[in-house]
């Protein structure tokens, strides 16, 4: 077995064990009060999840038992009929059997489960509406002729009200059929020997009372975060210790301390890392659902599922990923007829790919569909007054495509179930940037689209460039810094109330960060951004931080550039979290607080305001 699968199986086992214990608890609650609606709902939910998870891993036995239990509880939920004590004891045995099966997952121990499963299936059929149940009302023995009927009901209950209406899909009914086929001999078994079941019961009794422990410990993320904070402090203390030492003074001990702290840090960060496969695998279902609704044929391919990333990042991005994948199917992949017409195979492909480069993890959603026509995007952007026609014409293809990330921009011609509610890509973008990542799009008409998310592999640690302003140290994430250049006063030019310079022969807006800090207080659009410039002496050298964001460069003039450093960024607590300039803070070796610039937010909130103001001024003049 591959390492990866083994890990999934271990995780499944841990989770299933948990669920088994919950079931036990819930059944006890239900026994005490058979009208306990919450317990009924919870059992239904848990058995449903357990069924889904075990099916995904191909553990037929657990899937079957949890399936029939789910069915029974589905009926109980619907019709509110009360549980007979016979059914109840059978259900109890079903739960015990689940426990044994879960325990047996990696011991390869054979656990017979078909007897109890059949019992439950019979019980289920008894509680079904009359017309379906009449067939076997005469005898408790199930005749194989009934099976197609049973299979139908199973498939029917499969599509739950809570989820989008989905027609039974091939693969699913295939599993069912398979299950039914396997059932046939089992039926005979039960019909023939009640004694075998008696054996099983004894078997149950011998193992039920065992208390077992899983090899996994569930830890609330909060506790891990607490540990990470502590390690962050430890690093700071270590740094200050190192700073206070003169050269040659017990360097060995310091080196040892350094090694231990950094091992500790990476160890704890490692606990939070999960394989992107965990998220990717959830998309089989989503693709299937969306493809059914859209009446398209789509295959999902997964690449690089073993790449590891911070669990929190996956959590923050999960909604965005769902959005991107839905978009790929509903906007990217063409209908089978269209695909045939353009000489492609009728089945479209969506690929989820992950790979890493140094500390950056890339996640791509790739489709081989129709691609995005940037001229259509531009037309929409002009219609929605996101850009003027004159400016729009002069933009590059990439710049035109960028409009899909603007708030309120939706490419869908009409609103469908799947996509096109006018929120979407801007949310994806904001979510990605909130964790220091970037999103980009590449598309070729007729060939397909690649949506790429470049993400930090850990949220706790990031590369940053430190600089000084007014004797205060600030940091800017390296992911946004393009270059550091030196300029003189003659290189800067006043333009309206702002400043211009050039970088790589391209014009670039430049700001004295000091002015920008001032400007934020008033957001007065007539703010004079020349103050720093006016105070500058002729011939004096200035240090400029070139920020790259969405294919544009911006220059921030700072007092003094310091070193590059890996920092542990902490989020700011209220009320500082409302300051648009900063995303967080870190603590330096000397114990000082160092604020971290929030580049996307500065550009989005602070500078957009200014731009709008200028446009406004222009119109009113």
């Amino acid at each position: 077995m591959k390492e990866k699968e083994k890990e999934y199986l271990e995780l499944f086992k841990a989770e299933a064990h948990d669920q088994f214990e919950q079931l036990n608890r819930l059944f006890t609650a239900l026994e005490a009060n058979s009208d306990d609606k919450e317990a009924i709902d919870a059992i239904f939910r848990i058995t449903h999840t357990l069924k889904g998870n075990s099916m995904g891993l191909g553990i037929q036995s657990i899937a079957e038992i949890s399936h029939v239990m789910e069915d029974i509880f589905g009926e109980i939920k619907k019709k509110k009929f009360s549980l007979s004590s016979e059914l109840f004891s059978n259900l109890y045995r079903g739960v015990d059997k689940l426990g044994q099966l879960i325990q047996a997952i990696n011991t390869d121990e054979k656990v017979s489960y078909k007897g109890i499963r059949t019992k439950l299936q019979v019980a289920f059929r008894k509680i079904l509406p009359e017309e379906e149940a009449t067939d076997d009302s005469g005898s408790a023995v199930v005749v194989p002729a009934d099976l197609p009927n049973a299979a139908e009901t199973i498939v029917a209950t499969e599509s739950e009200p809570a989820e989008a209406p989905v027609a039974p899909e091939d693969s699913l009914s295939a599993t069912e059929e398979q299950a039914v086929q396997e059932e046939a001999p089992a039926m005979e078994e039960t019909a023939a020997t009640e004694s075998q079941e008696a054996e099983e019961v004894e078997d149950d009794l011998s193992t039920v009372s065992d208390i077992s422990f899983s090899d996994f410990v569930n830890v609330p993320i909060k506790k891990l975060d607490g540990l990470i904070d502590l390690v962050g402090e430890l690093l700071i203390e270590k740094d200050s210790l190192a700073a206070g030492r003169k050269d040659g003074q017990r360097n060995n001990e310091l080196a040892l301390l350094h090694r231990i702290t950094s091992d500790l840090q990476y160890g704890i960060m490692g606990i939070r890392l999960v394989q992107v496969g965990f998220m990717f695998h959830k998309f089989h279902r989503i693709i299937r659902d969306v493809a059914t609704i859209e009446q398209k044929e789509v295959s999902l391919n997964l690449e690089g599922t073993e790449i590891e990333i911070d669990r929190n990042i996956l959590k923050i991005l999960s909604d965005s990923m769902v959005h991107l994948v839905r978009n790929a199917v509903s906007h990217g992949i063409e209908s089978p007829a269209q695909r045939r017409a353009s000489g492609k195979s009728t089945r479209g492909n969506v690929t989820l790919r992950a790979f890493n480069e140094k500390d950056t993890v890339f996640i791509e959603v790739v489709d081989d569909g129709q691609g995005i026509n940037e001229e259509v995007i531009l037309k929409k952007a002009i219609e929605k007054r996101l850009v003027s026609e004159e400016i729009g014409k002069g933009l590059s293809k990439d710049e035109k495509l960028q409009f899909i990330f603007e708030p309120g921009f939706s490419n869908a011609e009409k609103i469908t179930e799947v996509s096109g509610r006018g929120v979407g890509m801007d949310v994806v973008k904001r979510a990605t940037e909130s964790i220091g990542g970037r999103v980009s799009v590449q598309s070729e008409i007729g060939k397909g689209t690649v949506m790429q998310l470049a993400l930090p592999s850990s949220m706790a640690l990031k590369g940053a460039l430190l600089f000084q302003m007014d004797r205060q140290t600030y940091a800017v994430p390296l992911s946004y810094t393009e270059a550091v250049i030196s300029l003189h006063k003659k290189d800067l030019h006043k333009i309206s109330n702002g400043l211009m310079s050039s970088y790589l022969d391209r014009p670039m807006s430049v700001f004295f960060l000091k002015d920008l800090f001032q400007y934020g207080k008033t957001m007065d659009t007539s703010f004079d951004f020349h103050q720093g410039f006016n105070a500058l002496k002729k011939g004096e050298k200035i240090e400029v931080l070139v920020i790259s964001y969405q294919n544009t460069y911006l220059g921030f003039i700072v007092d003094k550039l310091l070193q590059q450093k890996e920092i542990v960024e902490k989020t700011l607590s209220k009320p500082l979290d409302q300051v648009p300039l900063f995303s967080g803070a870190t603590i330096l070796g000397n114990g000082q607080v160092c604020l971290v610039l929030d580049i996307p937010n500065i550009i989005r909130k602070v500078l957009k305001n200014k731009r709008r103001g200028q446009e406004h001024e222009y119109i009113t003049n």
Partner: protein
Amino acid sequence: MSQPIVNDPLHGQSTDAMKGNANKQSTRSQLIVFKLGGEEYGLPIDQVKEVVLTPRLAPVPHTPEYILGAANIRGSVIAIMDLEHKFHLSDQIANVKAQEHYSLVIENEKFKVGVLVKEVPNTLSIDSEDIDDSKEVLQFSSLKEECVRGIAKVGDRMIILLDIIAMLQMDDVTLGS
């Protein structure tokens, strides 16, 4: 104990009735008492996590003047506020560098802030009977009613009881966007 001073005689009776109520379930509570602009203010002791010497502050641009900056207190970055300035008790922003000051660290699930105080704060145990929760006294002050739980009279001391959590939750502290 002496009758509370009530400005409006019409309200006198209702206040007495309220006091009657309070007598039945009078409890003692612990306060942290500190001085702002020469007056004494009090906070319930459970709202104050600790009192520390104010560390060096990093000024945070784009914040109101009374937010003096961000400080590193036991590894977390919190805002230090100058309530004297916020309550218009002093025209001058506290100069933290010049003198040693203390900070009360106020913490609940949502907030963690520091309040700058110039003298070492004290604890004081008061009886709930001593608290006059009439809001009338406040109507000509810049303090919002929600921010004050009442006035405690202990001997000839007048202690203004702040509800700092309410104050922080009010939009009052919202910063420029």
